[in-house]
């Protein structure tokens, strides 16, 4: 198992960082298991590198379709009561979330 991890590109730190970005809290054991499993997935995908893709256009999507489009016509939004119906907290049709410090993201 150790040998496998050393071969793959992913490290413990990579897993911790990815978990952090995805707001996932993983236990030590889970990080260990994840590092191993993600490493195996990457090793598996790695095999594709052996193929010769010279001159083949990258595929962004598997469906050969023209971009589906919609005319620019507005229809009313959904009932605002409905919009916030599932929210844990709302006030005057605004969602209410725990206080956020201004300017964190955007």
């Amino acid at each position: 198992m150790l040998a496998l991890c050393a071969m793959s590109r992913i490290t413990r730190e990579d897993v911790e960082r990815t978990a952090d970005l995805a707001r996932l809290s993983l236990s030590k054991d889970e990080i260990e298991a994840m590092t191993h499993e993600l490493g195996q997935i990457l090793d598996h995908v790695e095999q594709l590198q052996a193929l010769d893709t010279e001159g083949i256009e990258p595929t962004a999507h598997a469906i050969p379709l023209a971009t589906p489009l919609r005319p620019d016509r507005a229809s009313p939004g959904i009932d605002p009561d409905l919009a916030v119906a599932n929210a844990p907290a709302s006030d005057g049709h605004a969602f209410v979330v725990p206080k956020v410090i201004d300017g964190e993201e955007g």
Partner: protein
Amino acid sequence: MSDNPLDRYEPVIGLEVHTHLKTESKLFSPAPVRYGDAPNHDVHPIDLGMPGVLPVLNEKVIGLAIRLGLATHSTVNTRSVFARKNYFYPDLPKGYQISQYEEPVVSDGWIEIEVPVKGSGKKRGAETVTKRIGVTRAHLEEDAGKSIHDVALSASEGTHIDLNRAGVPLLEIVSEPDLRSSVEASAYLRALRSILRYIEVSDADMEKGQFRCDANVSLRLRGSSEFGTRTEIKNLNSFANVEGAIEAEIVRQSEILDDGGEIQQATMGFDVNRQRTRILRLKENADDYRYFDDPDLIPLLIDEELIEVVRADLPELPEQKRERFEQEYGLPGETTAILVTSRRLADFFENCARACNAPKAAANWIARDLRQELNERNLAVDETRLEPDALASLIRLVEEGRLTTKSARELLPELVEAGGDPQAMMEERGLEAVSDTGMIDEWVTTVIGGNAAAVESVRGGDDKPLNFLMGQVMKAAGGKANPGEVRKRLVEMIRGDG
């Protein structure tokens, strides 16, 4: 060391502009794009990030993106790809923003700006040169919702989230780091905003948040060709704030560099009250957004044919208009720069010039007197009661000597506010300048009699006291004498041809 950091350091500035596109509905949902509605009244399940929904692209934005691409001399890419930019914030319900990353719809263009010649300062009317600023790219993306942090209006604790803005179509327009001062930065923004309005891609109203700017700023020692570490100042929503924030950031960075410190790559905020920038967070790497192609959306393919159709439909752009005004009407650069700031003002000028057949006078009246009236009232030219024909008739009355410039200026505010026919107003109020030679001669004789010294100078060939004597005659005439006639009679009577 001198006090001015600009003596030692050269600022290197690039701007990212987010501009709301002029559409009825959102980028990927049919919910309406409206401003000022109550929270969450303009949302569709797609905007709320409900499970199972699929985004469908608004076809109008394609034409708008092409227009921007053509107007900025850019490449319109026949293939572009939507990508997910992943981050967590309460006003981003899906947990990602649909944007474009590696393959934007528009790339590699430029626009021209007018910048003051070095040393001529930034005051109005200073000599300017044209500078070309690179446009790196422009990509389509959806706006996020709005977080309302100071909820003084309600009893509940916490931050309020309104998703009316979520999904509103944007073009993010990224400039090359070609700007070298805060003045150049705001000149670029004005030029870009003017283009966006001409081509009707965006109303670009800063007060409505339709035109927002982030500024990337770094310093380097003068003479150096390497870039320094940059910081990004977020969410600048007025021209004054853009200039203020850049200037404050230049001071902050120069102080760190002077002390031998290093600039940390960071995202900054601008404190308007203290006119200072502060670090919001140290910059995450672009990788942290984990961009990947959005599997819900197929690449956007644009036909060359469509690009040509849009090109044929493109209106005359500000720079082209300016050049034409200079050639066709022989107007100076300072005046044309003002006339082309908006299509409406430029059209008003041309209609007025045609109607009065005095383009130079029309240009001066509009660029000076009318513009001042508009600025005082914070109005656009088509929001007033003044018609181009009415201004033309006012100008004609002045050109014909029937109305003094002074009287005409006095009529202008009323024409702006209430409209009306200048000739009728002039007649009603007895403002018509007296051209009757008998009366003018009487006033001129009196003034000549009472100002022997000035008269003597004029007789000796000095024209300077003429203006003083003119003023005296006009005063005697209650400001209502035909100035051309007065001047003529003064000269004739003093120099003895009359």
